[in-house]
């Protein structure tokens, strides 16, 4: 089913996007009720860039990633939306555009999604302590991934595993390959996870809070490594985090999520120097900034993140928003709109546009 279309020039604008997520809704049907984790997420993931997804716990950033991998487990389900993967293969300077797949159409256990997982899209998880299987050596787990997607012998796969471990700057890769995860420190395990994710040169790497569980010096080293690998390999990374410092250090483009929606999407510089959504602004004001030299009182966002079972009418942020316009914000959900005069800066807020998508929080 793969159409080979050799294109020698740079890919067309559509093909510049590795992944397009359109109106994605993922719900969890639990005994307590329906948790609407994603309420229409739109994301464009450009080729060769680092896209940051930032938001507080429960905003749906991890569910977005799991949906793209089709790893949302019951009682969770994708109820609506499209996830379009552009299968691009790059060899040297030539791009080969393969077909475009809608991931939401695939059987979550089927052959096709499995050929995407690991090979096209790879993922790193938050907890380095539990994301590697304690019963198998690091090498075993990397070799397993290599043998799954590449036609090589076992010896060859092992050599590749050692090479990739060296690539992630693990000292003594020949020995580490035969170690069990519990014999490695947190930082080393996360390096091994990165190695495993990179072992099949995926076109997209999703990193879900990869450094949250690590100490600050280890975190800095892992971030540095990822930046370096990204520059060398031209990899596309989706970097999920709640830490604005990490976003500033890692990302090119940033999507801010709140309660299952992207509320602002902009180049990283705009997010920090010209944020437009009240939530983004409030978030930036509420964090203590190191290096600002002047001590100012923090400005917390009032209220708490509503739980995902709550049915909120209108803009999901309106009851915590200082700029809330009664009669407008609490009635309709604002639509994502492009800010005039800006490149790639979109906001979902009635302060900027009157466009709306529905009368309340429900799917139309």
């Amino acid at each position, binding site marked *: 089913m793969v159409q080979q279309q050799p294109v020698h020039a740079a890919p067309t604008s559509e093909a510049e996007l590795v992944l397009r997520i359109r109106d994605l809704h993922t719900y969890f049907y*639990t*005994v307590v009720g329906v948790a609407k984790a994603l309420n229409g997420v739109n994301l464009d993931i450009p080729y060769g860039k680092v896209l940051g997804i930032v938001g507080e716990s429960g905003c749906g950033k991890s569910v977005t990633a799991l949906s793209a991998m089709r790893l949302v487990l019951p009682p969770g389900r994708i109820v609506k939306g499209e996830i379009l993967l552009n299968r691009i293969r790059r060899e040297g300077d030539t791009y080969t555009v393969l077909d475009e797949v809608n991931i939401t159409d695939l059987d979550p256990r089927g052959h096709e999604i499995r050929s995407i997982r690991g090979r096209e899209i790879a993922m790193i998880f938050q907890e380095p302590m539990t994301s590697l299987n304690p019963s198998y050596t690091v090498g075993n787990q990397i070799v397993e991934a290599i043998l799954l997607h590449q036609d090589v012998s076992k010896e060859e796969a092992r050599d590749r595993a050692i090479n990739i471990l060296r690539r992630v700057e693990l000292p003594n890769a020949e020995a580490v390959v035969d170690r069990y995860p519990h014999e490695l420190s947190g930082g080393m395990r996360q390096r091994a996870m990165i190695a495993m994710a990179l072992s099949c040169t995926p076109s997209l790497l999703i990193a879900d809070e990869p450094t949250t569980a690590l100490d600050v010096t280890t975190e800095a080293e892992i971030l540095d490594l990822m930046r370096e690998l990204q520059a060398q390999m031209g990899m596309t990374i989706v970097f999920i985090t709640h830490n604005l410092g990490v976003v500033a250090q890692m990302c090119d483009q940033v999507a801010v999520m709140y309660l299952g929606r992207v509320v602002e999407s902009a180049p990283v510089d705009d997010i920090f120097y010209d944020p437009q959504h009240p939530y983004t602004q409030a978030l930036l004001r509420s964090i203590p900034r190191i290096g600002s030299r002047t001590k100012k009182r923090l400005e*917390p966002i*009032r*209220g*708490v993140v509503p739980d995902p079972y709550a049915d909120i009418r209108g803009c999901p942020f309106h*009851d*915590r928003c200082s700029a809330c316009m009664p009669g407008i914000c609490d009635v309709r959900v604002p639509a994502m709109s492009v800010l005039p005069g800006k490149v790639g800066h979109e906001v979902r807020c009635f302060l900027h546009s009157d466009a709306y998508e529905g009368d309340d929080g429900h799917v139309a």
Partner: protein
Amino acid sequence: MTEETITPVRAAVAAAEPTSDVGELSQWQLIWLRFRRNKLAMGGMVILAIMYLVVIFAGFLSPNAHDTQNLDYIYGPPDPITFVGPDGKLGLRPYTFATTTVLNQATFKWDFEIDRNTRIPIQFFVRGDTYKILWWQNDLHLMGIAPPDRLYVWGADSLGRDMFARTLVGGQVSMTVGLVGIALTIFLGSVLGTMSGFYGGAIDDAMQRVIEVIQSFPTIPLWAALAAALPNVSENFTMLHRYFLITVILSLVNWTGLARQLRAKVMSYRQADFTSAALVAGASNARIIFVHMLPNAASHIIVVAALAIPGMILGETSLSFLGLGIQPPMVSWGALLRDSQQVSTVVQHPWLILPGIGVVITVLGFSVLGDGLRDAVDPYSI
């Protein structure tokens, strides 16, 4: 609340606090809410409640007293019951048929033949054998037939005693052995387990070795060996003594499991920050154990206890079945089943294993109840 004493930031938070009533519910109420959703466990609880009522009112519910012998009805089969009257019409009144005994020429044994033509009406609230419910003596029975005939709904045993009455009365022993045993288990297990987990050190080491040794014996053989050491029923050693010692034996092994689990719990509570907070507040050890640890462990204790009752009931049944537990004239389900130890006997008189139904239903009831409790107590289960 007085808004003016609170800074805007603090007031903002207060405004978003939960308003539902769920917050007023204690952990026990939440457990009960979760438990109530579990239909299987609720069913188990209802069935157990019915079973306990039935065995308590055994004397009233059964047509005959459990120890009335009837030499004319040795190994008599269950009386069939019909709602078809003598007029051939289906009615509300139940009838049974007359039984006659015929000497089998081949085996020289008395065979029972049912005379399908002679209907005997079953009467309700009839006077019959006297029985006791606790201290209350009476002779009123729910149902029966006119004397001298007797109604045997579940047949009769080797002495012509009513199996139905015997099963219900046997339940009084079998269904309480577990409860008395579990009370002892909870007492021993909680005290020893809490001490072991709280004080650690040498006490803990000693306790662990004792538990290890006890757990090094397979349960039933150990129970059997201990029960064999009990003296036989005599004037100085009544049936009641024996009954209580059997429960002691059953809990002697069972407390080890609870103690181990409780020890682990208490040790984890020792690490918990709420214990640290109490220590920092200056709370005494007693307060930490009784206010902080035991209430938290209580739900766990109940679950372990509920899950251990089936084992005790099965234990008593097995011991009595082997002749090492409850002994005649006292009856229990296991003691009744002892009559069916010879397969050849049961094949001919299969109603002798009917007391087994009581065992299965009770144990099943406690199992689903315990399982449901565990799910209700564990907040992480969905």
